[in-house]
């Protein structure tokens, strides 16, 4: 780390998000302009020099002699995350790492891996890992009239209310049509936090009909714990927050077919609640 500290840094910034401070320093000022759009939602500039996590980017490019090409380097602390010729790789690694760090270290908010939409004053949480079709289901719900909150994380405050995390949705099936491209990017009012009204834990199966069973509040909270990033590092806070979140929420689990067919079932439940 001392070696890194001795390098000449052309620019830097401190950001605050979810109770953490993240620092970024770069050897070439334009690199900062490339990295800032990669930051997760909720980051804002902070003037304090003290940080909890420090990212250092050493710009590469043509070397002192022909045929020599210096790689771009990204460090978190003193750990080298990536050495690459392409800035796109570096930016992707930076984006994933800073998001993973904030998701794990956030305080007092709790990050749960789930899609979230808002509808009629309540939130629907769609917990699930990668390739479970969360993004498709979020897109279908938005198309059916719900408001986009997130397709990656549900951010729960200690009172159990869910906050928006409006990252551009990532649809992982290569052959899938792109989701509504303005879901996260359109100019929007600041979204209010919402109470959780429904938690839907589904597994997608091609050609299958909608088939759900209800969960108790305890089962619903336990299910969400299985997708909570800080489950092992902050279990006491996780249990408290998830209990608060599921107190007035209905929980469903089961099988679904195509997202467009599932969306009306979900929204109907919020109308009748």
């Amino acid at each position, binding site marked *: 780390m001392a070696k890194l500290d001795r390098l000449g840094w052309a620019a830097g910034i401190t950001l605050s998000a979810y109770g953490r401070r993240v620092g970024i320093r770069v050897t070439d000022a334009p690199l900062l302009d490339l990295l800032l759009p990669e930051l997760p939602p909720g980051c804002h500039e902070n003037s304090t020099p003290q940080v909890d996590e420090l990212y250092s980017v050493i710009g590469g490019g043509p070397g002192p002699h022909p045929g020599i090409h210096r790689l771009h380097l990204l460090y978190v602390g003193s750990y080298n*995350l*990536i050495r*690459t010729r392409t800035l*796109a*790789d570096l930016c*992707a*690694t930076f984006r*994933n*790492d800073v998001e*993973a760090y904030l*998701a*794990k270290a956030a305080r007092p908010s709790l990050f749960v*891996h789930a899609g979230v939409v808002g509808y009629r004053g309540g939130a629907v949480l769609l917990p699930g*890992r*990668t*390739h479970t079709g969360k993004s498709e289901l979020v897109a279908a719900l938005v198309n059916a009239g719900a408001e986009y909150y997130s397709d990656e994380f549900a951010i729960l405050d200690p009172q159990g209310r869910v906050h928006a995390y409006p990252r551009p949705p*990532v649809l*992982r099936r*290569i052959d899938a049509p792109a989701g509504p491209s303005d879901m996260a990017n359109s100019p929007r009012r600041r979204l209010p936090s919402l109470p959780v009204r429904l938690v839907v834990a589904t597994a997608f199966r091609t050609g299958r009909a909608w088939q759900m069973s209800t969960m*108790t*509040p*305890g*089962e619903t*909270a*336990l299910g969400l*714990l*299985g*997708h*909570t*990033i*800080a*489950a*092992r*590092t902050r*279990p*006491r806070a*996780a*249990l*408290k927050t*998830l*209990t608060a979140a599921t*107190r007035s929420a209905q929980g469903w689990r089961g099988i679904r077919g195509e997202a467009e067919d599932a969306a009306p079932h979900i929204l109907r439940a919020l109308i009748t609640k």
Partner: protein
Amino acid sequence: MINPEVQPIARTEHLLIQEMDQEILVYDEATNRAHCLDAQSAKIWRACDGTRTMEAIAAAVRTDPHQPLEVDTIRIGLDALGKAGLLQKESSSALRLPGETRRQLLRQLATAGLTLLIPVVRSLVAPTAAEAASMTTSWACQNTNKTAIGKCCSNNHRICKFNGQCNGSAC
């Protein structure tokens, strides 16, 4: 054969307990397992204070004074609590039900129309941060638009690296 005079004791060490309306959430810091005790198993667990036999526990958790609670219900509950590691070790091993016996008891309770009284303990292993955040696959690591970089590959639990290979550090 389970000794009916056993007086089970609920474990408390290294457990984080969150009371809900009728259920209890328990996080075991020793094993990183989390449990949800339904209303029935929660009552049974609370009654395990080391002074009560199964008969006494049945009397303590009975909600309908006109309907005695089957001791078999308590046996199933204690077996489930023991398997979840929520009883002290001595109680737990003394109360373990062989598989066939457990199935027989469940059938008897179902036949008697007492299914709703069967105590249930649901459990899961709490995920690590990498597991919870997002697993990816070796295919996604190679093919999807760099969104998989830095995520944990489900096939070998190694981080997807920038070279499109799941050969990073263990996760």
